[in-house]
């Protein structure tokens, strides 16, 4: 039996350099018990094993008891019930559905970038990354874009105050924002029931008979989409633009060869995962990479360290487009593979393409040191000010 270590995730030095932060985690061991009693899986082999045994590593146990007002659909559901939800939801977020939205989504990001392109400066987080994922969510659900700023405010209040490992006491501001957001979603549901459209929310509500969802299930889906699908994409956009800003060679190479946009996005997702770890609870005693974990153990799957495993990648801590095909587990794996992964990838791609059409040359504002917020429910940059030639337009 391994004794708990002094390891605390909150001590990982993430702010300036995730390489240091993730190394802090992987150096503690492949499978080990943290000071708080939870088990941490850091190697690709251990994480893959957990992803492929959802019956042993329960997502429902991990996400079900977190004081959520509604069940987080579908991540808080284990097999076999999980399958029913994904069979309905996967087709609603499949690439061909997103293809149909692409022109609309592209026009929206073009407008966001055009608003500051002539100014010579912007903050990517404030002006793009915080706004665009919420616009995309509203578009997907057939809701008015004018709801954007209110929704951003609720989600940020909830996520910023919900620090993992923090106090168990509910923070009043979080409860208030959560209730307001649920009320808002409930009103949207009623409106869609009255006036169905060609959107994801209307399609879920149109399910009938044995396939019909309860009101709590629909609320839970919207809750998950907003809390897991907005700030994660915000973070990914921030990190992508950070690396492109800091590495002009990478950026210019990508602009000269549009085929490289995909590999750039994949490599940034690999080394800067917005959700670097994800929780599970063991349903039975299990041995992972030779280490015994008892039943009922809170377990952390550390995706970020699996993504940087030496031996799997020639340059594990650096962006190397030649290794982009090797893949990563930033979107998780197995049956709980991120439902929104196709949409997230498309959002990041549209931001990269449209931003650079208007602003091909830029750099991080002189003197500014980009910092990742940690500990946090989502690893993200709080701010990323950029400067570029005023007047806009490609030079």
């Amino acid at each position, binding site marked *: 039996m391994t004794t708990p270590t002094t390891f605390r995730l909150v001590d990982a030095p993430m702010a300036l350099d995730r390489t240091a932060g993730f190394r802090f985690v992987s150096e503690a061991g492949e499978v080990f018990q943290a000071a708080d009693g939870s088990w941490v899986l850091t190697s690709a082999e251990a994480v893959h094993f957990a992803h492929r045994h959802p019956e042993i590593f329960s997502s429902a146990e991990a996400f079900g008891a977190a004081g959520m007002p509604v069940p987080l659909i579908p991540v808080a559901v284990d097999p076999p019930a999980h399958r029913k939800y994904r*069979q309905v939801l*996967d*087709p609603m*977020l*499949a*690439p*061909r559905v997103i293809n149909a939205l692409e022109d609309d989504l592209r026009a929206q990001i073009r407008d966001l970038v055009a608003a500051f392109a002539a100014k010579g400066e912007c903050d990517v987080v404030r002006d793009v990354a915080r706004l665009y994922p919420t616009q995309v969510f509203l578009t997907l659900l057939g809701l008015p874009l004018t709801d954007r700023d209110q929704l951003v405010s609720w989600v940020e209040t909830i996520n910023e105050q919900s620090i993992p490992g923090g106090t168990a006491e509910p923070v009043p501001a979080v409860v208030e924002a959560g209730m307001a957001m649920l009320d808002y979603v409930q009103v949207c549901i009623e409106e869609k029931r009255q006036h169905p459209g060609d959107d994801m929310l209307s399609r879920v509500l149109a399910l009938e008979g044995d396939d019909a969802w309860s009101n709590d299930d629909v609320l839970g889906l919207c809750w998950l989409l907003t809390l897991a699908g907005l700030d994660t994409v915000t973070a990914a956009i921030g990190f992508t633009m950070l690396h492109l800003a800091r590495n002009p060679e990478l950026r210019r190479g990508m602009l000269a060869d549009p085929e490289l946009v*995909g590999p750039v996005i994949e490599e940034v997702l690999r080394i800067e995962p917005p959700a670097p770890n994800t929780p599970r609870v063991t349903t039975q005693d299990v041995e992972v990479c030779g280490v015994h974990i008892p039943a009922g153990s809170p377990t952390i799957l550390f995706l970020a360290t699996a993504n940087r495993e030496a031996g799997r990648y020639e340059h594990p801590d650096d962006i190397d487009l030649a290794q982009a*095909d*090797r*893949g*990563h*587990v930033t*979107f998780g*794996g*197995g*049956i709980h*593979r991120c439902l929104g*992964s*196709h949409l997230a990838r498309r959002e990041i791609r549209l931001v990269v393409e449209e931003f650079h059409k208007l602003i091909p040359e830029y750099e991080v504002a002189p003197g500014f040191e980009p910092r990742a917020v940690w500990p946090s429910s989502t690893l993200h940059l709080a701010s990323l000010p950029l400067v570029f030639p005023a007047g806009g337009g490609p030079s």
Partner: protein
Amino acid sequence: MQLVIDDARCTGNGRCYALLPDLFTDDERGHGHVVGDGALSDDQAEAARRAVVACPEDAITIKDQ
């Protein structure tokens, strides 16, 4: 050589058809499928190995016939 996707393992990451749209296609759920009968020439097999490596679920194999 024969290109095969194990449907039981595929969870719809979509890397195969994103990387190699000539060899793979997507269905309405976003899961990957082999185009045609999956028979590969030597050149195609070389390309297909990229997808074998890229698949996060290890769902893709190239079988010698």
